[in-house]
């Protein structure tokens, strides 16, 4: 599907191993076609993926393939909290519609979790959720099974607590019988015991066992005949039933309460972590910062080693940045040998890989792409040290990754905007330049070609002095063009508003000497003096550019002062700077002109539209060259007359090899 048709709609379809899931995908595909929307198929892969039956795996991969063939891009996310992960992904990817299948309409029990669809709606209320009835296999049941196994991890500690509380309840009951309290009190004590058990133990199993045990204990110790499970009165059967039910309900309720508390605590924690991450990421100004902050947040949260492979400027995956948690032990051993290879794969496919995933599952770490809208910004490698992430950890990790890729995308967008505006500025500069250059090239070219054609066709009619005049005009004009081209070449080196400098250590006096070899040939009509100080002044500079500055300044002086004027070039050291001055004793520059002298295309007093020496390029170029060297160029009046350009450049101390 062409993704550029209309990206305003983004449909998300949830994939499951269920055979009827094909129907859901089909519906989503049709919808995507109708809306011209991009389609993403999302599969939330449980952390115990390896335990899933082979037939289910096969169906799943068929479903994924089917979705892919119908133009969906596939996103696989590892986690056990399906609704949360789907909602999170929808939020991050900017999905507008979610299509999910639903296995029948289940009656909602007061202790059951709200159905998947409802949870998604709660989490992302702004997204439309489409439910496709899905009768056959019960996907939800499977999920709940996973949840159950997730919670029931009977521990010895919980068993001991249960036994102790039951003994205590029995003890209290026996004490009550001594005082002759009624049986109702004892029943209450047992129900209290079950309540305490469900609060103190992690699993629902213990409150259930507690409930049953309470009934049995009550029967054994307190109902005649004592120390047997028999009863004389049938009404006790009803008492036992009610006792069992009420203690079960008590236990379940307490458990649920606890679960809710834990859930909301986690939610709060998750919200806080995400908020912090978001805050930090918003302050980040560089890609490196974003990646560093993300890595730090992940380390704080998961306490695991992280390696990040950012994408470098050329668009390929750079080298890994390793970030260790505070008490990491010899984690280098845990790094996969083919880490870079896996990272490259993840980068290319934009799919997670590594341990507990389908791809490279023999690896020791988990690899996740940091991607957003088909653009991958890097790969994050999480060293799990053999311990899989809890579903909660995983979901927070995924959210942080989402925040990170969002931040990176924002940065990239900002960068592109900046580039575009610089480009526009450069374009403006260039078009101005071209306009004024074409005028300035035309004038000398007219003279050269006209003079040459005169020579070709009318040579015989010309006398010696006319010929000499024509020859010298051609020479002057072509020299002037050469000068122009030199300056243009340097202008072309201004990229993105910055000059590309080829820095090297050079001696100022050498540069001055070399520059004087390239100045206007009319230099002989002026008196040029150079005075260098005795010290060797080494400056780190682009010597060609500095030479061009000096050539421009001296040529300006030659052009703008009468024949026989003095031009003086001095170099000296002032603390940490080298000061070079070019001064003349001409008529100087009027005060009204001075503020504009370094502006591009400013042509000084020459207001004539067709003026020959147009193109106020020279001084503007000088200024940008000097500023690119972190130096300054200023214009002052020379005493008694004329003007003086002062350049100062930062100096470099050099230790000389022996």
């Amino acid at each position, binding site marked *: 599907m062409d993704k550029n048709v209309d990206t305003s709609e983004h449909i998300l379809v949830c994939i499951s191993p269920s055979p009827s899931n094909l129907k859901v995908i089909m519906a989503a595909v049709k919808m995507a076609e109708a809306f011209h929307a991009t389609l993403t198929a999302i599969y939330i892969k449980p952390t115990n993926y390896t335990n899933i039956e082979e037939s289910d795996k096969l169906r799943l991969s068929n479903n994924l393939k089917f979705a892919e063939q119908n133009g969906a891009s596939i996103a696989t996310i590892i986690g056990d909290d399906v609704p949360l992960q789907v909602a999170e992904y929808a939020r991050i990817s900017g999905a507008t519609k979610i299509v999910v299948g639903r296995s029948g309409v289940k009656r909602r029990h007061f202790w059951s979790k709200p159905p998947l669809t409802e949870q998604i709606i709660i989490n992302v209320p702004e997204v439309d959720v489409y439910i496709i009835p899905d009768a056959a296999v019960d996907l939800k049941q499977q999920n709940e099974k996973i949840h159950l196994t997730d919670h029931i991890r009977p521990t010895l500690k919980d068993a001991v607590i249960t036994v102790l509380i039951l003994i205590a309840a029995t003890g209290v009951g026996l004490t009550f019988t001594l005082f002759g309290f009624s049986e109702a009190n004892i029943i209450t004590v047992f129900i209290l015991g079950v309540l305490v058990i469900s609060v103190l133990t992690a699993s629902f199993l213990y409150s259930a066992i507690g409930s049953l045990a309470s009934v049995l204990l009550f029967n054994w110790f307190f109902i005649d005949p004592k120390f047997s499970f028999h009863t004389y009165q049938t009404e006790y059967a009803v008492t036992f039933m009610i006792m069992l039910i009420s203690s079960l309900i008590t236990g379940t309720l307490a458990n649920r309460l606890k679960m809710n508390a834990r859930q909301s605590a986690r939610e709060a924690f998750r919200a806080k972590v995400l908020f912090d991450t978001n805050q930090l990421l918003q302050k980040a100004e560089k890609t490196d910062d974003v990646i560093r902050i993300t890595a730090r947040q992940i380390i704080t949260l998961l306490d695991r080693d992280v390696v990040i492979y950012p994408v470098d400027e050329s668009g390929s995956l750079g080298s890994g940045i390793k970030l260790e948690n505070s008490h990491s032990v010899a984690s280098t051993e845990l790094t996969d040998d083919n880490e870079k290879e896996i990272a490259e794969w993840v980068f290319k496919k934009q799919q997670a890989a590594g341990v507990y995933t389908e791809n490279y599952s023999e690896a020791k770490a988990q690899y996740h792409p940091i991607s957003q809208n088909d653009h991958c910004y890097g790969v994050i490698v999480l060293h799990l040290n053999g311990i899989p992430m809890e579903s909660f950890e995983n979901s927070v990790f995924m959210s942080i990754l989402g925040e990170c890729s969002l931040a990176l995308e924002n940065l990239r967008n900002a960068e592109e905007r900046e580039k575009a505006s610089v480009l526009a500025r450069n374009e403006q500069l260039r078009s101005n330049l071209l306009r004024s250059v074409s005028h300035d090239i035309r004038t000398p070219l007219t003279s050269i070609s006209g003079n040459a054609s005169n020579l070709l066709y009318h040579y015989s009619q010309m006398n010696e002095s006319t010929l000499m005049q024509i020859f010298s005009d051609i020479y002057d004009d072509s020299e002037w063009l050469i000068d122009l081209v030199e300056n243009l070449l340097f202008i072309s080196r201004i990229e993105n508003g910055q000059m590309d400098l080829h820095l090297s250590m*050079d*001696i100022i006096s*050498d540069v001055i000497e*070399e520059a004087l070899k390239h100045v206007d040939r009319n230099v002989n009509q002026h008196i040029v003096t150079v005075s260098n100080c005795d010290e060797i002044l*080494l400056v780190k500079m682009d010597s060609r550019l500095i030479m061009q500055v000096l050539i421009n300044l001296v040529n300006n002086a030659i052009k703008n002062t009468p024949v026989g004027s003095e031009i003086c070039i001095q170099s000296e050291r002032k603390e940490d700077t080298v000061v070079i001055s070019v001064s003349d004793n001409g008529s100087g520059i009027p005060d009204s002109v001075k503020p504009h002298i370094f502006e591009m295309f400013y042509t000084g007093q020459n207001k004539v539209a067709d003026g020959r020496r147009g193109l106020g390029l020279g001084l503007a170029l000088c200024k940008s060259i000097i500023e690119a060297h972190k130096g300054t160029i200023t214009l002052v009046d020379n005493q008694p007359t004329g003007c003086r350009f002062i350049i100062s450049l930062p100096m470099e101390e*050099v230790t*000389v*090899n022996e």
Partner: protein
Amino acid sequence: MNNPVILVVEDDTPVRNLMTTTLKTHDYKFLEAKNGSEAIMLASSHNPDIIFLDLGLPDMEGVEVIERIRSWSNIPIIVISARSEDSDKIEALDAGADDYLTKPFSVEELLARLRVTVRRLSLTHSNADKDSAIYINGRLKIDLSAGCVFYDEEELKLTPIEYKLLCLMAKNTGKVLTHTYITQNIWGRSWENDIASLRVYMVTLRKKLEAAPDAPRYIQTHIGIGYRMVKVD
């Protein structure tokens, strides 16, 4: 050496005409080649004394022509390039070119480079006859066996590095040596600091060499490229 034969390699006809006309008016003998393969053929068959080589040729890179010719001959090659980037010149010099000229060049400049090279050729010819332990260039004399340098028969006090530098320049008189080439030969490496040091040593060496007020310029500075020892009459 009288009347050397010059091979002009240039694909642009007006520029080639300009060069050949200039050579003709100054009574030099010359050969013309329009591209690299023709240049290599003429160089091997006619054995010219000097080659003017344009770097931007239609059939092959100028640097390749230099390398091919250098595989059998030490004919001085003067590179002519319209590329203003120093790196191109340095590449050509390091490949074995002796000198370079940037377009647009003046006719005077072309002739001056030619004279420098011709003088250098005669120097190598004359020095080859004599005992090579003594180097003489104008008023400068280096006694290589004793490790002494004399100017007007007066000994100059040079530091070891200055002496090494001077010998290296003398051995390659007339040839432009790149900064990298020099630092590699003096310090065996070419770090930024070495190049800065080279600048400083060159200034001190030149101060000693050209101390006399009427002393000629023995060492030319080529900004951004390197240095050259000039043959002085």
